């Protein structure tokens, strides 16, 4: 299973006590087997499609949750994306990774869904920044930091949130993200830069503890 194998070659540098390490994720870049699954899906092999679905359902659900807020729309867009994979797998020619192809379909469908069902007006942003005052309880303090981070994620625009999640959770490179979102790589880097700044601001005085 994919969750048991990590083939990425991570950076090995150690600098001033900071060892960079690739993180173990629940979702990883496409492996060669996924291309094989797509071949079988193009021949209408339901078992191959189920295998592909079980790999991608959690990844797409998470990705789409960042783009559309209504759960029923997430579900609908996810199903429509996988139906597109089922019906058009033969058009996948391997020019990109299977994951890039599938996420790009999902992104386009999410944009169309957002156009059909505009997002509800957002509540005024609550200041979730963490106080500089030490919390009486360490566990509680960590929970506050976690909540502040989640609150800050909610406050990001859908596209900024998607870039953050595709990077940190789905472990996609900036070029793949640009391909999925149909934008220049510099736009991806800029979105990430501003998103990180917002997230760090949300942690405020608790950032040092968090790190």
């Amino acid at each position, binding site marked *: 299973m994919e969750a048991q194998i990590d083939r*990425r*070659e*991570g*950076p090995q*540098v150690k*600098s*001033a*006590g*900071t060892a*960079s*390490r*690739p*993180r173990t*994720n*629940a979702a990883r*870049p496409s492996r060669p087997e996924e291309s094989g699954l797509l071949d079988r899906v*193009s021949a209408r092999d*339901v078992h191959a*499609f*189920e295998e592909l*679905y*079980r790999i991608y*359902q*959690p990844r797409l*659900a*998470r990705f789409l949750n960042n783009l559309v807020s209504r759960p029923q729309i997430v*579900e609908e867009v996810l*199903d*429509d994306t*996988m*139906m*597109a994979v*089922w*019906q*058009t797998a*033969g*058009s*996948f*020619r391997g020019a990109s990774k299977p994951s890039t*192809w599938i996420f790009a*379909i999902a992104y*386009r469908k999410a*944009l169309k869904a957002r156009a059909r069902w505009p997002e509800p007006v957002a509540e005024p942003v609550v200041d979730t920044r963490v106080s500089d005052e030490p919390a009486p309880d360490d566990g509680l303090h960590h929970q506050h930091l*976690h909540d502040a981070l989640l609150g800050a994620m909610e406050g990001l625009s859908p596209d900024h949130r998607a870039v*953050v*999640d595709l*990077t*940190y*959770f789905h*472990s996609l*490179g*900036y070029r793949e993200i640009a391909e999925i979102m149909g934008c220049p790589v510099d736009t991806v*880097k800029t979105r*990430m*830069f501003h998103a*990180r700044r917002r*997230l*760090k601001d949300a942690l405020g005085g608790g950032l040092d503890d*968090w*790190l």
Partner: protein
Amino acid sequence: MAVPIRPDDDAHAQAEELLPWYSTGQLDETDRALVEKHLASCVACQRELRFDHRMVDELQSLDPQVESGWSRLRGRIAQDDRGTSRMPALSGAWRILRQPAVATLAAAQLAFVVIAGGVFLTLSRPDYQTLGGSVQPAAGNVIVIFRADATQKDILDALHASGASLVGGPTTADAYLLRVSPERRAAALASLQADDDVQMAQPIDEARP
């Protein structure tokens, strides 16, 4: 007075924006070397990298609902299979459409055909007709190519949204001929051209003054 940018500042900015992908091992060799060279001497970026690592850790939780989702989608596949078996003509056309074709080649081919002026004559006499052969098919006035990964539903949505009806196709270039009423011509074209599932939509008649 403008502050001159020092080479160190430039290297810092470049390395800093790459750190998220460095932390997940997603940089190529050139980018990785750039980051590592800078990281060795930049305390601020070392701290940024710790932030990236924490972000990866924090964003792991997920509550997938795979089983119920698969059950739902399995039902749609069964419907899809029944649907295609009830519509052999459409199914056959769909299989033709799904055959690999290089999109740019298709677009170039289409552009050539349009310029040559032969497309209208060819497509206004589609190879297949439906619902009775004695009925003269409506003349098409818009030619469209859908994205290779557009589904039947996507195509139907695009047709409904634009108010266009399908007259013929697919051609060998995976193009379809559509008919839109002269009154709705501009709006229909705008709708098709704005649709993410449409790769190209062009009129093949003259706009009415």
